[in-house]
């Protein structure tokens, strides 16, 4: 491990104070890090960090920094909550996992009881799309979802160990029956009694993902505490292109979710308590990460830049095909295309690293039938995400005029997350 520069350590841990100001809770008094009191926090055997930032790209980059720079044998707990975002796993496909059109429209604010909200509150909230560095499936985050992350030596790695820690914290807060299931998720039961029977339904409240490097292992998880947006999550995570895409990589497993109804501060305090009970943690080994200082650190800034790049978000996608009709490789029956689309229309695309590698488009209204192969050929090498309007892309790809391209282009736009 390279030597840790003192200034970096200071930058990461200098500011004490309340992190979760949205939910004011009494917090243990953290030591104030000052210039002349440099504890080389990252070298401690047990470390606890809180981030007040809600920027998912920044929080994941701080987390990655802790993964790379904390002492090899140390145990680190990092806690943060993000603004609304959809987070896909390292080897997932955003076109398949996410309703990108819906995502770009944002989230409508939840209805408030009584008088309608003032105009500025009626604007939809932006939802970020994030690809994390760990494996696993797609999750939704917002301020009512608390993320916990434990970094430890590989020798201590166990997929359930820290999920159990969080489940204990939840049970301690009165969330009875919180337990870790066989998928390493935390679930709770809800007994809904009807007149005829009692049906027990199980809901996921926390999901896990892992990243293992040569020196360290990271287990991070979500915990739905009080998200006001759960009603929208299912639609956000349902892609209209799902029946047409066959992807390599990792597909999400859909689960019914719910909030546990605990405040962020209470949850954080309980998780910290459980973590401290597991590891011999010095009273002063807890620090708040200063957002501006973290952004100013070159390694973290580079991490943010990488996570925000379209290259990472889209082009990291494992190879996939999009076919309007059943193929040998993907023989599923397809839903009917809109009636406005010519019945002879066919589209088969192979996309590798976000780039169209192979295209076979047929059945458009060509001025000259000899144009057909050129349309396909000219789409090759284009980045799927950079095609803003398929009407334009098809017209540009065709040597001659194309008849009414509107319905086909609009439909493809909708499939790939652009304005239909």
């Amino acid at each position, binding site marked *: 491990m390279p030597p840790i520069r003192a200034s970096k350590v200071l930058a990461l841990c200098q500011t004490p104070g309340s992190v979760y100001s949205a939910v004011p809770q009494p917090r243990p008094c953290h030591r104030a890090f000052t210039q002349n009191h440099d504890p080389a926090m990252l070298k401690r055997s047990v470390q606890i960090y809180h981030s007040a930032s809600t920027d998912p790209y920044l929080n994941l980059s701080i987390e990655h920094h802790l993964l790379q720079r904390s002492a090899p044998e140390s145990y680190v707990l990092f806690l943060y909550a993000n603004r609304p975002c959809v987070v896909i796993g390292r080897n997932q496909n955003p076109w398949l996992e996410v309703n990108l059109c819906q995502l770009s429209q944002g989230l409508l604010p939840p209805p408030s009881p009584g008088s309608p909200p003032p105009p500025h509150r009626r604007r939809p909230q932006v939802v970020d799309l994030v690809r994390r560095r*760990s494996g696993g499936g797609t999750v939704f985050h917002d301020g009512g979802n608390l993320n916990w992350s434990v970094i430890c*030596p*590989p020798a201590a790695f166990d*997929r359930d160990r820290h999920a159990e820690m969080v489940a204990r914290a939840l049970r301690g807060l009165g969330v009875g029956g919180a337990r870790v299931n066989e998928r390493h998720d935390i679930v709770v039961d809800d007994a809904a009694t009807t007149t005829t029977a009692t049906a027990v339904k199980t809901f996921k409240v926390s999901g896990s993902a892992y990243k*293992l490097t*040569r*020196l360290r292992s990271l287990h991070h998880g979500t915990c739905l505490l009080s998200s006001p947006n759960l009603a929208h999550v299912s639609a956000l995570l349902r892609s209209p292109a799902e029946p047409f895409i066959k992807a390599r*990589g990792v597909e999400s497993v859909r689960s019914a979710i719910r909030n546990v109804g605990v405040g962020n501060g209470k949850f954080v305090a309980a998780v910290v308590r459980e973590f401290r009970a597991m590891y011999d943690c010095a009273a002063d080994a807890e620090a708040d990460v200063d957002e501006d200082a973290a952004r100013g650190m070159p390694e973290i800034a580079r991490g943010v830049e990488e996570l925000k790049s379209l290259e990472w978000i889209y082009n990291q996608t494992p190879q996939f095909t999009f076919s309007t009709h059943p193929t040998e490789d993907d023989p599923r029956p397809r839903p009917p295309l809109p009636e406005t689309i010519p019945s002879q229309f066919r589209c088969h695309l192979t996309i590798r690293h976000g780039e169209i590698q192979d295209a076979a488009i047929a059945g458009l209204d060509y001025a000259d039938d000899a144009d057909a192969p050129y349309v396909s050929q000219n789409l090759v090498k284009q980045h799927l995400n950079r095609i803003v309007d398929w009407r334009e892309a098809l017209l540009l790809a065709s040597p001659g005029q194309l008849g009414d391209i509107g319905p086909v282009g609009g439909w493809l736009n909708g499939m790939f997350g652009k304005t239909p």
Partner: protein
Amino acid sequence: MASIARCLRVTRPSGLSALVKSPVSRVCAARAFSATATNAVRKYTKEHEWIDLSADLKTGVIGISEYAAKALGDVVFVELPEEGKRVQAGDAIGAVESVKSAADINAPISCKITQVNLLLEDKPGTINQVPEDDSHGGGWIAKVQVDEVGVKDLEKLMDDQAYKEFTAGEAEEH
């Protein structure tokens, strides 16, 4: 002995080694070695990668060990190395995903990636079936070009027997 094994792992653990310390069944003696024409030497890292070096010390093949592959669980995706890339021993060159875990694959020695096993993109489960097979259809990950530095790096790695003892120690400890 156990504490020594622990120290070793703390000094050079890995993405893969995080997964393999649980008490898994021992490596079976009959590994899926493929007999290469050039009498390749197979060496292992503590992070559970293997490398075959050709007799002329110029080229090699890299993969992950059967022991590691068992502990990984079902491999659902293999992120292959980048062809043409030069890497140092210990650099992350790719990753495997299994059970929500993205685990780095590290270069066992300094080398240049000349070819990657594209079969793994389509059939990642090959890693579970024949992880130590360096032939066509096997679970090898990359073919590499090696220079003097790489050959020197090889000295630090374990031979088949030493690796067998190393993994037996790991399984015992847990």
